[in-house]
């Protein structure tokens, strides 16, 4: 099952403190899941069956719903993206930028995989 670390407030947290969210295998290859992290909804995406994972906000600002983790992962040119499941805009997984509207920038999160644990910071 999933693991939920005790969440600390921003002030208390040290810079390099990582919170384990789930196991890598909890994210099926080339799909996303949604995590609750410090009160925010974070979309985590796993590229192929590798341990490369990205984390951006789960909120679709155009569709106005918390759904981005349920979008399809793919690439546009060299950039890895997710397509919104509602209206299909693309968001850069690395930068959070909306490819159709560069003014829209989603919040991104630091993410890593340590001993099969997906961790956010």
């Amino acid at each position, binding site marked *: 099952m*999933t*693991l*939920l670390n005790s969440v600390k407030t921003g002030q208390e947290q040290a810079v390099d403190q990582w919170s384990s*969210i*789930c196991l890598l295998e*909890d*994210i*099926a*290859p*080339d*799909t996303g*899941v*949604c*995590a*609750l*992290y410090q009160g925010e*909804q974070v979309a*985590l995406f796993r*590229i*192929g069956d590798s341990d490369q994972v990205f984390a951006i906000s789960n*909120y679709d600002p155009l*569709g106005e*719903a*918390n*759904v981005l983790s*349920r*979008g*399809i*992962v*793919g*690439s*546009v*040119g060299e950039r*890895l*993206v997710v*397509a919104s*499941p*509602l209206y*299909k805009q693309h968001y850069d997984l690395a930068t959070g930028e909306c490819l159709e509207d560069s003014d829209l920038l989603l919040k991104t999160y630091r993410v890593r995989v340590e001993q099969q644990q997906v961790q956010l910071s």
Partner: protein
Amino acid sequence: MSKKRIIVVGNGMVGHNFINTLATSEHSSEFELVTFSEEPRLAYDRVQLSKYFSGYTAADLALTTADDYERQGVVFTLNDKVVAINSHEKTITTASGRKEGYDKLVLATGSYPFVPPIPGKDQDHCLVYRTIEDLEAISASAAVSKTGVVVGGGLLGLEAANALKQAGLETHVVEFAPRLMAVQLDEGGGKLLRRKIEDLGVTVHTEKNTKEIVAGQECRYRMNFADGSFLETDMILFSAGIRPQDELARQFGLDLGERGGIVINDYCQTSDEDIYAIGECALWDNKIFGLVAPGYQMAKVSAAHIVSSLITHEEPALAFKGADMSTKLKLLGVDVASIGDAHGHTAGSQSYVFNDDIAEVYKRLIVSADGKKLLGAVLVGEAEAYGTLLQLMLNDMDIPGNPAALILPAVDGEASVGLGVAALPETAQICSCFDVTKGDLAAAVQGGCCTMGDIKDATKASTGCGGCSALVKQVMDAELVALGVEVNNNLCEHFAYTRAELADIIRVKGYTTFAQVLQGHGKGHGCEICKPTVGSVLASFHNEYILKDEHIGLQDTNDIFLGNMQKDGTYSIVPRIAGGEITPDKLIVLGEIAKEYDLYTKITGGQRIDLFGAQLHELPQIWERLVAAGFETGHAYGKSLRTVKSCVGSTWCRYGVLDSVSMAIALENRYKGLRAPHKIKFAVSGCTRECAEAQSKDIGVIATEKGWNLYVCGNGGMRPRHADLFATELDDETLIKTIDRVLMFYVRTADRLQRTSVWMENLEGGLDYLREVVVDDKLGICSELEDAMTRVVSTYQCEWKTTLENPEKLKRFQHFINADEDDSNLLYVRERGQRRPATATERIELVNLSTVQG
């Protein structure tokens, strides 16, 4: 300024075309259009008349409706014949005594069937073939007859013979000339046509001159011929040519030809300049034109002349210059075409003949003395070259290379000699039904048309007989290329193939995963276009569980959670209710679940029940109960078979002739789970009253007393399309076999997200081609298509049942991977006793309220 009054006498195809031309012109508001018809209905498609016997109704054949005319401001009167013209007062009088004034009068009275003056011709069961009423009489007579004879072996005669054969009669054709279609075909062509028609069970008698019709011994009548022989028959259909309907013009002093026909000039004016004649009643240069295309041309010319003489006072821009009488058609299933000087009457002309007795194909080219120009052609048994040959002849082009190559069959590995459309002049007429030139098509492409559908909407090209569709597409593609529009059919940046090509690759290579396809034929990581496309193709061919690890990342938003995502990120649930039949117990289960989870409940257009507003974590709980109650997934989320709608059929309905509900349930259970390029909807009606609206569905089935009629490629929705009648009087087994083939062919060849309606419109060769593939098995793939469908049917699984049995998969059905909380963003209000998402304004109020209360 008062409106100019135009009276059109006759509402046949040409009269209607004239009205439509003026009513849709920029000057439409300056005219008052009035028309009279002696027939009980508005204009209908006489060219397709024989389809009446294969299940088409009068409404299917209609070219317009009372509503359309009313909207266009056209005043029409049916069942009332114009009987008098007063050209001094400029008035007409009808049989009912109405008198109406006109500024211009247009005679579009058409023609009547010629019945040779044979003693005994006026008895019961001696009929003609021209109007829907004639066809009704033929039907009635055929019902009490065993044998039927058609007098006349011309084009219409053979159509009529087809009608009798379809009505189940032993059919004979009696022709005065030594061969069939003597006007259009030469001896070789006529001979082969006769052989092919006789193979179909129609007996042909040539060089027979009927002397009298007397009472028969075996049958109702006996026809005695001049050579002493005789033939017995129960009914006789005269189709020995047409005569112009010029009676009105004759009585009121307009100039007529020696053998009839109202004489017209190049602007279609008769000897009275305010009276025009168009269509089959008109005589131009001593010729009657018995085809619809020249009639439409006359309608266009006369309309333009009326506008210039009454409104703009400019020189008339159009003139009638005669018309090409080349024809291509399918007679009793045999392709026949005749172009230009089919008999080689031109001095010094020479010919090339190709005759294949085995394949039963005959082709003859008539070329000029120097062998450079094509003058005419006869094609029987195979007429694919018609478009190319016609253009060569009409545009007086030099024959490219050796003329013989134009009719020789292509040898393997060698492309058949075609005529590049680039070689055609701008003025080349591509669609003769609606007089659309290559230049018109080019202009449409420049105006933004880039699909066959666009072109048809913009120019009407290929919406008449459809014979030009392949050529229209070639011109369109060539124009797109010329414009620098790369005709890029690539699926997306990751695959330089169309969906159909990818489907072939996947099928031939036997790929089972997206990774294999991407590695072998694509680049990058894929995207939201190619992943679901490949996922769908894999599912169509292999039908594996779509949430398997190697497939899950390919699934669209809806498929991945086996529900339909709504605007707020929640899902709707649609269990399968096959054929729309549901027990009270199951209804109660749905009600209980909806109540417990507070789901907004609505009946769908496909006779099912949609439950809205379920959150991710609720989906498995709800489906657990649905599956336990005997429900299966309804695939409302998939590009796949949705519903088979049905009327209650013969089990309850007083009018039903077959059990439509049982058939609908059988079809729905057979094709459920079939993944396709787009969603597929069916309907089954238990009688021709068509309560299930099958003719607006991808696959429509309508019961008749003789079996099922199958309609294909209809659509409601955004761009409605009336389905095409594909096959008639099928038994259950043949019906299912035919649907198997059509659907699997669609799955293999359609573009991504292309419904069957658009697929059909873009299919080269259209309905006829689909029939050749699916019914005649032209490509030899029918058994393969059936096998592929059998595989899909035998590997069906309810995706929800499989998912519920798989705890690993269920993990995904919660909003957070690391918490049990719900999405806090969801807010609802109640309306008419049910829950719905709050609007933006309501959200602000709700949030404020909760803050205040909190």
